[in-house]
């Protein structure tokens, strides 16, 4: 395999498939170690959760702030990751191919989020008698200042409706993963050897690769991808309203849910880019994952980082300019009061650091620059969720008219640390397990890419020529 003017080594679809299936059949020692470490940390997190529940119960919200932040973090990063595959397929970006399966495999983290979401439901009271987006309110209460006036009883608000949203999102993501991976699972089934052959065969569901099967496959992936996008934005937005905004009296901010949805797009892409780097580095897959893949993602990451600032500013400036007592208290609670260091770090890592890193052409056009920016974003997003959710969960009286007193900072204790480490590790653990069942490369998409791509001479240089069937 010879390098061709920096366009990567020449690969045939057949040689790639054989190589990738060989890689999939093996579990390297480092991979096993990662499984053990993340599995043990996950267990530690479960123990932390049990001890927290036994000690504090579900009466008070304050002890659960870091738990809620962890759930929001997983929702805004790993669960959002499949959107990268959806969006890049939609715009037919050829550089998507090595990263789409990584993005889709993160769907399994949705199951963990769905489980962790159940205790949160016990911590949020019914929508009766307080400001929410939902239809439920006690008939004798007037909630006229909302613009939208929910004044009638709809049972189960907000719990039932946010659960339906999240469950639909997870169902959609898992269906997308299964459908997209079906041809690859057939390859695993047909490959000689490998312990996971039987399971692959069962999940492939007698896939043969007929023209109709490919056509239905393509249409299904497109449809489920579209639904996933529609659901993700709504779920993240409503989750942030029900589990943060509605818990702080007087916090009325129409930009916040949209900012959280935008943060999920940024977090999802950062998750995929950083994982792509790890897969390339530790899987020794430099021959399949090149600079162009990181370069393509880096431009979107840069744009999303700028948008993060724009959305944050749009929400912030209204409160800052308004200067009402409640608005000043909200700014204190969420940004400049007890959580100021956390906010400043989140601001730096979500906007300043990725912006200043990806601003440079040389950094953007490298295999290390975009993952570095992605790492900043992943840390920054966690801190951002901490300052929002821990602050919101530390407010005692959520039915009050306004936030009159800013509660002090709630620092994490040992259980909180166990829960945070366990929650994040649990997500990584599930990803690692799923990546053993489903090939980490979208084999059919990579093979198609190799078939449609060629390097041809042009005057004194060589160019990549892409075949575009549509």
């Amino acid at each position, binding site marked *: 395999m010879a390098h061709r003017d920096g366009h990567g080594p020449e690969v045939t*679809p*057949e040689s790639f*498939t*054989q190589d990738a299936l060989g890689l999939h059949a093996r579990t390297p020692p480092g991979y096993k170690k990662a499984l053990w470490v993340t599995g043990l940390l996950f267990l530690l997190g479960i123990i932390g959760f049990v001890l927290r529940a036994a000690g504090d119960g579900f009466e008070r919200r304050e002890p659960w702030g870091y738990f809620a932040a962890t759930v929001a973090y997983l929702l805004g990063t790993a669960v959002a990751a499949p959107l990268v595959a959806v969006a890049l397929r939609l715009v037919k970006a050829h550089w998507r191919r090595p990263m789409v399966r990584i993005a889709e495999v993160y769907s399994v983290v949705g199951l963990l989020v769905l489980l962790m979401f159940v205790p949160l439901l016990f911590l949020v009271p019914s929508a009766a008698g307080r400001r929410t*987006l*939902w*239809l439920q309110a006690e*008939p004798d209460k*007037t909630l*006229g200042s909302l613009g*939208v*006036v*929910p*004044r*009638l*009883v*709809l*049972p189960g608000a907000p719990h039932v*409706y946010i659960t*339906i*949203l999240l469950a*639909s999102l997870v*169902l959609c993501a898992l*269906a997308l993963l299964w*459908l997209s991976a079906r*041809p690859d699972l*057939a*390859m695993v*089934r*047909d*490959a000689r050897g490998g312990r996971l052959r039987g399971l692959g065969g069962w999940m492939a*569901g*007698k896939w*043969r*690769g*007929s*023209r*109709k*099967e*490919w*056509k*239905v*496959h*393509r*249409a*299904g992936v497109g*449809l*489920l991808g579209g*639904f996933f996008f*529609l*659901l993700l934005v*709504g779920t993240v937005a*409503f989750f942030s309203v029900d589990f943060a905004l509605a818990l702080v009296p007087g916090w009325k901010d129409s930009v916040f849910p949209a900012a959280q949805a935008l943060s999920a797009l940024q977090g999802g892409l950062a998750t995929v880019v950083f994982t792509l780097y790890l897969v390339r580095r530790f899987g020794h897959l430099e021959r399949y994952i090149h600079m162009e893949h990181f370069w393509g993602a880096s431009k979107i990451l840069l744009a999303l980082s700028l948008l993060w600032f724009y959305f944050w500013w749009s929400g912030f400036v209204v409160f800052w300019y308004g200067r009402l007592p409640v608005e000043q208290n909200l700014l204190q609670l969420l940004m400049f009061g007890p959580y100021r260091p956390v906010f400043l770090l989140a601001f730096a890592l979500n906007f300043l650091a990725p912006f200043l890193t990806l601003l440079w052409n040389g950094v953007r056009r490298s295999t290390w620059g975009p993952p570095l920016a992605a790492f900043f974003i992943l840390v920054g997003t966690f801190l951002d969720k901490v300052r929002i959710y821990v602050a919101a969960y530390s407010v005692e009286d959520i039915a009050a008219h306004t936030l009159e007193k800013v509660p002090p900072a709630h620092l994490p204790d040992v259980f909180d640390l166990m829960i945070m480490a366990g929650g994040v590790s649990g997500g990584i653990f599930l990803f690692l397990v799923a990546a053993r069942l489903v090939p980490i490369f979208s084999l*059919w*998409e990579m*093979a*198609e890419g190799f*078939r449609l791509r060629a390097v041809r001479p042009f005057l004194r240089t060589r160019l990549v020529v892409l*075949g575009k*069937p549509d």
Partner: protein
Amino acid sequence: MAHVLGLFREAEAAAVATEALQQAGYTNENFEVLTGSPYPEGSFGERVARHRLYVFPFIGAILGFSTALLLTVATQLAFPLVSGGKPILGIPPMIIIMYEGTMLGAILFTVLGIFFESRIPNMRAGLYDPRITEGYIGITLTCAEDRINAVEQLLRRAGAEDVRSAQR
């Protein structure tokens, strides 16, 4: 009736085989091209496959929307409280639940549609060979039992590396 499967190492040979089959009087209804990864439509001179998957999410979305509309309207009419002189049915908050119902219905019916259109579980899948996922192109053909030998020869002449047949 009998089923014949020809395996081709080269895609070009498979395309030649489909042309030969058409010249021999077989139509697109009789044969099927099997590949391990997607090829652009029409690569083998085959007809464009048709499906009805798009109908499923549409039906699901209508059902989900209708259910959510019924739920929200019925609950509000069951407690007809007028506040601030506003109408009984508050449309903006209803939209959220109707959006949820629509999406859930569309997703469930899309998954159902994928199962239906892909014929899962397919207990009577035709001939298949694991080499197809290794990069070989498979052409399966349904023909009369007395035509098996002729079809096998045709496929071999076109460049098939291996030909198998089965009777049903």
